[in-house]
């Protein structure tokens, strides 16, 4: 949809694009506020609390109050900080996340631009995010921040690789299916991939892909169990430990916007985005609802993982990525290639991927139960044998005078 059609007036393309960008930025800011509120409420439910209740009806204005507080707070810069790195870092973390919304399809017609290489654009630009984090870490002149920033960089590099490989696998499947309709080259566009999932969401074809994407997403967002860059009990908040006021708020906003972004992406790639799986065309209104429901389910999943998982250690995180996720995603790409080259049907693709997912789960379960050890659940107990009480004897002493 072009806005000009919607509003009934004609306008040049660039004004149209500008309006859409403004619309998206405004929507995302509201979305981030809503997400912060939702996270606090849902997390509170997980933790036997009630969450914010005082600001507005059932605490709905809490995010606004927080934002007002952040805006009015003093913006402190440590005297030893690198001025430019420190002050520009929030923007470097903030801008790429918003840029990535350009090819995101919220409905069949609601997006800024349907880019031909949308997926490549998303990951290329999102990768810039880490520059801001490292700038903040280095510029703060703080050891906790430095450790956090280096952890974040290591984590981003190791988790983007399996994630990208999985995207490749998804694009292969999409290209194979789109080629039937005649245009396999559209498989880089997110909207084309969503459009192909009218009856079969790709989670059925690539369950392993969905799993690895979720894990990579949690790592990308620094969410538990992958939150060691911002670990409170180790590096006291990590790379934004020295930030205060609105600069800190921008990191926060970027984090929640990225959460919404990756959730939309995951729902577009694997859950069929704006599609209703049992009928072809459902109209604009229902498409919005479908996108909203699918993303909400995933958001609850992400927030739940925050409540229920402790934190991995940095070396465990790296070895999980390089030794488990990367081989499995390579195998997935190769398997897809072989099946599609020989024209295998869709259910074979899905079955192989599901088999790989089961193998991955079994491997992790096997390793961890071996590590837990035999009989670890019931600690060996020695029955307490009652004895006759022997009171410690009071021994008389020469009372020392002073």
């Amino acid at each position, binding site marked *: 949809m072009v806005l000009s059609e919607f509003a009934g007036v004609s306008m040049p393309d660039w004004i149209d694009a500008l309006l859409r960008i403004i619309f998206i930025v405004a929507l995302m800011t509201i979305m981030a506020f809503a997400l912060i509120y939702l996270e606090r409420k849902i997390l509170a439910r997980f933790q036997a609390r009630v969450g914010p209740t005082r600001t507005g009806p059932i605490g709905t204005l809490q995010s606004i109050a927080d934002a007002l507080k952040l805006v009015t707070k003093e913006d402190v810069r440590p005297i030893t900080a690198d001025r430019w790195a420190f002050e520009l870092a929030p923007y470097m973390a903030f801008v790429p996340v918003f840029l990535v919304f350009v090819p995101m399809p919220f409905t069949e017609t609601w997006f800024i631009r349907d880019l031909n290489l949308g997926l490549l654009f998303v990951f290329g630009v999102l990768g810039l995010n880490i520059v801001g984090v490292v700038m903040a870490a280095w510029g703060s002149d703080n050891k906790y921040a430095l450790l956090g920033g280096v952890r974040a960089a290591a984590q981003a590099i190791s988790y983007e690789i399996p994630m990208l490989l999985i995207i490749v696998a998804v694009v292969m499947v999409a290209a194979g299916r789109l080629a039937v309709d005649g245009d396999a080259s559209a498989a880089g566009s997110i909207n084309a991939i969503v459009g192909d999932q009218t009856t079969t969401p790709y989670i059925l074809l690539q369950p392993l892909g969905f799993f690895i994407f979720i894990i990579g997403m949690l790592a990308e967002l620094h969410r538990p169990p992958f939150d060691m860059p911002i670990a409170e009990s180790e590096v006291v908040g990590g790379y934004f430990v020295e930030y205060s006021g609105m600069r800190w708020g921008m990191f926060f906003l970027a984090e929640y916007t990225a959460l919404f972004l990756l959730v939309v992406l995951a729902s577009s790639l694997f859950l069929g985005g704006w599609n209703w799986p049992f009928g072809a065309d459902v109209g604009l209104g229902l498409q919005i609802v479908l996108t909203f429901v699918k993303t909400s389910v995933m958001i609850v999943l992400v927030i739940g993982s925050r409540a229920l998982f402790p934190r991995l*250690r940095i070396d465990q995180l790296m070895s999980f990525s390089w030794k488990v996720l990367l081989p499995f995603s390579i195998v997935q790409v190769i398997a897809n290639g072989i099946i599609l080259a020989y024209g295998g049907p869709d259910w074979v693709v899905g079955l192989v991927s599901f088999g790989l997912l089961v193998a991955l789960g079994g491997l*992790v379960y096997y390793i961890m139960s071996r590590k*837990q050890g035999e009989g670890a659940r019931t*600690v060996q107990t*020695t029955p*307490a044998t009652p004895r006759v009480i022997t009171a*410690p004897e009071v*021994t008389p002493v020469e009372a020392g005078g002073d």
Partner: protein
Amino acid sequence: MVQQTFEGEVLTEPVVVEREFETVDMNINIGPQHPATHGVFRMVLTVDGEIVKDAIPYIGYMHRGGEKLSENLDYRGALGYQDRTDYLAAFNSEWVYVNAVERLAGIEIPERAEYIRLILAEFNRILSHFMFMGAFGTDVGYFGTAFTWTFKERERIQDLFEAVCGDRIMYNYFRVGGLAWEPHETFIEDSHWVLDQVEVGIGDVDELMTNNEVFIARCRDIGAMTADEAIAYGVTGPMLRASGVPFDLRVDEPYSIYDRFHWEIPVGERGDVYDRYLVRLEEMRQSVTILRQALDQMPTSGPIEPERMPARLRPEPGEIYMRQENPRGEYGIYMVSDGTDKPWRVKMRSPCFHNLSSLKPQVINTYLADAVVALGSIDIVLCEVDR
């Protein structure tokens, strides 16, 4: 390029010093203000990247001279300081002190008071271990879930304590010879109700943490101590038992009326952080067992203090070392009387001080995150370390 040396000699050639690429170890302060130190404990870690190469612990920020203060008050007046050493297990600490004074002065206390003391102390052990579960869960990385779940259960026990003695942390309820006053009328029913809730709470914590793969990955084989090492460092309590030594003063040097109950001592195998967690979890269940037996056996009426108590306590000259099993280990009071109404010497043997001394070998050559977990698994109370 022309360079000049200190002697004024002019060198026409640039001096090229060949060096290997050097990396510098970094010092990181964990504390005194840090989310992972559970109080004001400071640990300077020398790290090579993420790996801890050296650790220097600093204690003493909370030193208030409790021993010396106790020597300047009479035997009954110093009881309040016991609440303020191990504030997470104040009943247990009070109990050691009053027991020491009673043994020194030769005072017999009524059976009912003994039961109430034991019940409160065992409740306090559960409360303290719940606190450990919550704080340790936060150290390992649960975003508050372990903390809020365990605090929910702690709250019930604290409500019970509040009903009994009017305070939630600094109880000051035991007296030399008995108790300050009768517990409230529905004490036994309330205790049974709290126990039911607490058992569910222990199960919740168990389900949240014990079999979680990430939790196992973080805790297994971290900070492992053999039995010999643990004994050499003077480690006591759950940490010692996690290393495989079934040493529990309630059984090995029984005091009070612990010989009337049947329970089991949990013992670990590897002495690592995970075993310490498991031992504490099982100890909570064993405490529930003891409490159920004690509540059934407890006489419903009777005196809570001896009929005659001297107005001023003047024990015969002598010395005593009274030690009991606190949630964190062996808590001892060494007391010397010179026949006056003030103790001539009071020495507190605090378990955390000795347990904490074993920290350094546990954290060296591990990751920074492991150092935090190992520190958390010791379950320190800094007020008790520094006294």
